[in-house]
């Protein structure tokens, strides 16, 4: 597809570094799917949908800076939705993402619909999910929390940030269930990393963990889940360098499975990631390995 034209209709300054852009388009996307956002004449970068018509951008470099400076009435190009998105699961049942599976075909997968089952599913496990959002990682997780909550799941969200000012979507997540906070500087909630905030919970009481944030934070979370034998119940949204965004070029593939983060992901299961490059290295635009 060619980029569709999305006109900015609203701007929300979420934190000093994070801005939500509302647009006049609405995509039929599953939570966790992403779009390629074209800042014309500059760059095109992957962004989660924080809402069917919104992206939530953290300023980190040229393109995100440019996005953050847009005004209402300005427009961007959007290709997508792409990738697999989160799978909402409960009751212990879990199908891992397997090597070679066509896990997600951009724009075709609508996994969210399966969530409906939760309402009727009466088995012992209680349909409790934990969402762990670090920094702008909250963007793809918010629609997930909202969908899960509206379908009757019990949602607990852990939000981590450098400092209280940078906490993203605290209010929105609160409407979906319990929220627990951690800040690096202790300005709000648990003083320290988000992993510290996990301690207060009986992790075994949760049926699924949804994680997005900086890779080293996600790695720490996964380590804790693995220690508790829960790694197969974790779904993590990965960040790799995307070029094509549609599963052809290979820029975003991970070792040793060769899975494409842009197409077989960006959401991958914890048990698969444990045996991977995850938390160790990634590749830059040239394909060069960069150690974390």
């Amino acid at each position, binding site marked *: 597809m060619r980029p569709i034209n999305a006109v900015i209709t609203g701007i929300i300054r979420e934190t000093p570094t994070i801005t939500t852009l509302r647009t006049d388009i609405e995509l039929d996307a599953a939570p966790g799917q992403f779009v390629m956002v074209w800042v014309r004449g500059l760059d*095109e970068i992957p962004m989660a949908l924080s809402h069917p018509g919104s992206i939530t951008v953290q300023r980190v470099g040229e393109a995100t800076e440019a996005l953050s400076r847009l005004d209402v009435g300005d*427009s961007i*190009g959007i290709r997508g939705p792409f990738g697999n998105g989160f799978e909402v699961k409960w009751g212990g049942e879990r199908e891992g993402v397997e090597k070679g599976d066509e896990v997600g075909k951009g724009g075709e997968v609508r996994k969210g619909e399966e969530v409906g089952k939760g309402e009727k599913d009466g088995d012992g496990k209680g349909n409790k999910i934990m969402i762990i959002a670090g920094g702008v990682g909250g963007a793809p997780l918010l629609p997930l929390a909202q969908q899960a909550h509206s379908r009757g799941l019990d949602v607990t969200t852990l939000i981590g940030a450098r400092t209280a000012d940078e906490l993203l979507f605290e209010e929105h997540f609160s409407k979906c269930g319990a929220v627990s906070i951690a800040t690096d500087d202790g300005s709000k909630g648990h003083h320290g990393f988000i992993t510290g905030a996990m301690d207060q919970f009986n992790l075994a009481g949760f049926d699924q963990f949804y994680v997005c944030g900086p890779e080293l934070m996600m790695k720490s979370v996964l380590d804790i889940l693995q220690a508790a034998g829960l790694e197969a119940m974790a779904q993590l949204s990965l960040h790799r360098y995307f070029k094509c965004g*549609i599963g052809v070029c290979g820029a975003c593939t991970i070792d*040793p*499975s060769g899975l494409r983060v842009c197409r077989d992901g960006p959401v991958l299961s914890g048990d698969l990631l444990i045996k991977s490059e995850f938390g160790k290295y990634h590749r830059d635009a*040239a394909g060069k390995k960069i150690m974390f």
Partner: protein
Amino acid sequence: MSSTDLSIQLTGLELENPTILAAGILGTTGASLKRMAGEGAGAVVTKSIGSEPKEGHPNPTMLKLDCGFLNAMGLPNPSYRDFREELSIAREGGVPVIASVFGAHPDEFAEIILGLEGASAYELNVSCPHASGYGTVVGTDPVLVEVITRAAKQATDAPVWVKLTPNVTDIVEIGEAASRGGADAVVAINTVRGMAIDIHSGYPILGNLYGGLSGPAVRPVAVKCVYDLYKALDIPVIGVGGIGSWQDAVEMMMAGASAVQVGSAVYDNVNIFSEINSGLSAYLKANDHSLDDITGLAHRKVEQ
């Protein structure tokens, strides 16, 4: 050879089947190349590798159009120094691994080939801009193609394939130059020059402004190039461009291809290699043909 045996000998390499992963498609890492071998590819070609790390063109680098794909990756690669390790991982896939290399002059090609020792064969991507001569690419100049091919042959004992661009007045002239230079095979075609413009803003969509067309749109172009090259050359022709089904593979082989490469069609299905192979087997069996029977069949029909 039983009629449904898909194995071929190609420039001295043994392939279990004639479907090859095309250069630049899921070929950035050893792991990805291994995965494609697992999906049934008879051989895999790496991303084109150069002498220095290269980030490639700015995004957008690839677009799906109604009838194909447009890309301008800009040859991103970590240089042969960093790719060596990927190559040895790729070889664990159990199928021949062909290293695609690009450069601006003969010495550069030779340097990279030496740096990527151990590949089953080398595919010369002569689509890099001339060092001298702005705007044109190495692959449009028969003299340069000949000397690059010769330099590559001198740098290795492994087979050397030369991948041709269709963006020339006469592809046969370039194919002949490669052949004179000692190429073991030619591969046709690389992408066809193309461009897309965003009508909402007027901006060219690709970061590089223009790029190369691939996928179904270019198949008739590729079939014609392969047909002409088969007619003119004595070395094998490997057909690539828009192949997405066993029917497409058969058509390309009838035009003269000894084997086919599949690129853009992984978009629909990474399992495309197995899919083509099973269709091909069934076709050969039903028609009591061998692969040799169909390679170049169109020429024999025309001569009748």
